[in-house]
C-alpha cells in the first residue's frame, strides 16, 4: 500500500475518527528507520488495548508494531487468546480465524499475496500465544516451517493458557501448579526453539521483551530473513502477571529475573548460514548508507 492511500479527502477530514487523522498526520508508514524510539513521538499502530494493566504483552505489541520494517505492506495473522483482544485495534491488516490455525492461514495468505503482487514486497507475520503455537497448532506451526513458508512466526510465551484462566500449556515449566495441572505439570517445557531450528527455521530467537532495542533488532532480522530466505521464529516471554501472582508494576522485573544467563529465558539465538550472509549484506549496506549520509552532511556544511 502506498502511503498516499491513507490520505483523507479534505471534505471528509472532520468526520473521520481522530485515530485515523492521527495516523495520517503522524504515523510512521514508509519511514525507513522506524523503530521503538518512535513510540511517544508519532502515532503508534496500536490504538488502545483491553489487556490487563501492566501486561507485558502490551509492551511486546507496541515494540513489535514500532519495529516492523514495512507495516504499510505487512499483514499479520493472530489466533484466539489475549492477542485477539488487541488485534482489532491494530492499524495493519490482520486476520483472526480459528484457534491454532494461524500458520496455515499465513501459508495460504503469503502464497496468495505472492501470486497477486509478483515483484512486490508483502510481509506476513504471525503472532499467537503458546497454546496456539505449541499445543493445538503445533502441527501447522511445524508443517509451515518444513515447507519453508516465507513468513515470521512470533510466539508470546506466557507459559500457560492466560485468556481461559491459567491452565497448563506445553510451554509451562515442569512442576508448576495450575488449573488442569493440579499436582504440578508432569513434563518439561517443550523446547520449541530447538525444534524450530531442526524444522528448517533460518532465524530463531528466544528472549524476553524487557529491552525494546533488542526486540526492534530481532523483529527486523526475523522479517527480513523470512522475506528473502525462509521461515523465522521468535519466542518472547510475556509473563501473565495475573496468573503467576504478580502486581501490575512487576512484569518488567519478572522478565529481567527470567533472562539472567542461568535462567530459562536467557537470550538464545540460531542463525542459518544463508541468513548470516543476508544479515552481513544488510549491515554492509547500512554502513554504506550512513557513510554516504555523513559525506553529504559534510559537503552541505
Amino acid at each position: 500500500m502506498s502511503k498516499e492511500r491513507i490520505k483523507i479527502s479534505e471534505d471528509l477530514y472532520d468526520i473521520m475518527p481522530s485515530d485515523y487523522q492521527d495516523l495520517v498526520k503522524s504515523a510512521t508508514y514508509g519511514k525507513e528507520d522506524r523503530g521503538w524510539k518512535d513510540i511517544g513521538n508519532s502515532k503508534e499502530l496500536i490504538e488502545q488495548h483491553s489487556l490487563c494493566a501492566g501486561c507485558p504483552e502490551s509492551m511486546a505489541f507496541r515494540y513489535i508494531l514500532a519495529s516492523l520494517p514495512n507495516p504499510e505492506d505487512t499483514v499479520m495473522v493472530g489466533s484466539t487468546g489475549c492477542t485477539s483482544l488487541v488485534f482489532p485495534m491494530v492499524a495493519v491488516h490482520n486476520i483472526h480465524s480459528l484457534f491454532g490455525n494461524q500458520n496455515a492461514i499465513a501459508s495460504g495468505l503469503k502464497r496468495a499475496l505472492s501470486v497477486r503482487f509478483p515483484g512486490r514486497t508483502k510481509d506476513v507475520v504471525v503472532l499467537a500465544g503458546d497454546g496456539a503455537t505449541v499445543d493445538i497448532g503445533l502441527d501447522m506451526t511445524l508443517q509451515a516451517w518444513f515447507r519453508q513458508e516465507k513468513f515470521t512466526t512470533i510466539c508470546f510465551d506466557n507459559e500457560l493458557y492466560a485468556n481461559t484462566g491459567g491452565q497448563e500449556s506445553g510451554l509451562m515449566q515442569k512442576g508448576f501448579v495450575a488449573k488442569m495441572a493440579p499436582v504440578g505439570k508432569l513434563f518439561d517445557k517443550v523446547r520449541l526453539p530447538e525444534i524450530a531450528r531442526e524444522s528448517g527455521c533460518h532465524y530463531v530467537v528466544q528472549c524476553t521483551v524487557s529491552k525494546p532495542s533488542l526486540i526492534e533488532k530481532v523483529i527486523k532480522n526475523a522479517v527480513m530473513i523470512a522475506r528473502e530466505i525462509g521461515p523465522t521464529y521468535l519466542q518472547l516471554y510475556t509473563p501473565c502477571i495475573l496468573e503467576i501472582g504478580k502486581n501490575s508494576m512487576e512484569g518488567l522485573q519478572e522478565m529481567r529475573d527470567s533472562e539472567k544467563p542461568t535462567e530459562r529465558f536467557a537470550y538464545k539465538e540460531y542463525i542459518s548460514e544463508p541468513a548470516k550472509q543476508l544479515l552481513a549484506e544488510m549491515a554492509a549496506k547500512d554502513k554504506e548508507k550512513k557513510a554516504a549520509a555523513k559525506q553529504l552532511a559534510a559537503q552541505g556544511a
Partner: protein
Amino acid sequence: MADTHSVIGTKNKKGQTFTDTWKMMNEAPRTPSFYTGSEVIKEALRRASCDVMIAYPITPQSEAAALIGELFAEGYIGDYFRGESEFAVMSQCAGAAFGGARVFTTTAGPGTMRAMENFPMWSGARLPIQMIVTCRGINSPLSIQPDTLEIAYLLNTGMLVWHAETAQDFFDWILMGYMVSEEPDVHLPLALCCDGFFVTHTKDVVNLTPADMCLPPYDPYRSPVPCMDMECPPVRMMRDPFVMKSNYISYATHASWQQEVWAAVERSRKHTIKWLNGLIETENTDAEVIIVASGTAVSQGREAIRLLEDEGIRCGLVKVKVLRPWPGEEIREATKNAKHIIVPEFNVTGWLAKEIKATIPNSERVHAGPRVCGGMTMPPEIIVSEIKTLLGMTTVSMATRG
C-alpha cells in the same frame, strides 16, 4: 466516473481469452468429450482462472486433486501445494481467500468432518472459496464407499451447498459456482457436492466449453468486507465482531452478522436461479407419485420411472440441484398434486426427506426411502418396489431376480 476498464477479450499467460462467463457457458460451442468425473473437474479448473488450489489426499477425490496439480505444473493455476490435513488445508484456503485469491479445493468424507470448524468461519468471514465434496462414508468401521451423510453436516454452516447429479453438472457448476459465490451481495463459500465414485470414477460424455476461453479473474475489491492485502486503509478495522464482551451491543453485533450471512445465502437465490436455470428440475409433476431426490439418487429415480412406465404406472420427478439456499417454494409447488412423495437417498438418516417434510403441507405424503448407505448401490428396482408397495400393489421379491 465509472471504471470502463475490462479484461474481457484480453489473453492470460496461457493464451486463453478472458470471456464473459454468460457467453462462455451459454453461447460458445461445446465439444463432447468422454471423461471421468475427476478429469472433468480438471477441465473445469483449466477454464476457471483459479489463483490458488490446495490439495490433500483422501479417496475418492485424490485423483482430481492430483490432476489439478498437473494444471499448476502447466501454468494454469497461480499456486498449488499439498497441505498437511484437511483442517490445515481449509485454513490455508481461508488464508489465500483473505489475501484476495480465487481459491479451489477438494475433499471427501472424513476430510470434510475433520475440516468442519473451518466452514462456518469461511461463511462468517465471507470468503468465496469453492470446495468440491466427493461424498463418501464417514462411519466407523472405516469405509471409502459412496455415502452422502456428510452433506447433512454442511447444511447449517452458512455455505452455499449444491448437489451435482452428473459430471456435466459438475463441469458447468464449478464455473457458474464462482459467478454466484463472488457476487458482492453473496460472497460466500460454495460446497459443490457429488456422490463419490459414482460421479468421480465413472466415464461420461461431457460437453466442454472451448479450452481457449476462461473466466474473468476474481476481483477481491468487490468483496463486502476488506481484502487483507494492505491495499486499503487499515484503521481500527474490526474484521472480527466483538469478542468476549458481555454486553448487549456485542450480542447484537454477533446476531446481526449471523443473520447477514444467512441473508446472503438467500440473496444467492436469484443468481443461482439465473445460472442453473432454477434450483430444481421437474418432470411430470401432475403424477400422483413423485420422486424427489438429489445427486446420483436422481439418476436411479429416472431409471425407476422408466421401469414403472413399462408397467403403466406414471411417476414424476423432482431433481433438487441446490440445497442451500433451500428450494422450499419450488418443492411445495412441484409436489402439490402428489399423493406419494418418494425420497430415495444414499445415507442412513434421510436428511433430504427431513428437509422436505419440514417444507411441504401434509408431510405424511413423504416416504423417506428407499435409503442405502455404506457404499451400497441403489438398484432402480428397489425404488420401483417401494413405490408399488405404497400403491398397495404386490411386488416380486428382489431375491427372485437371480
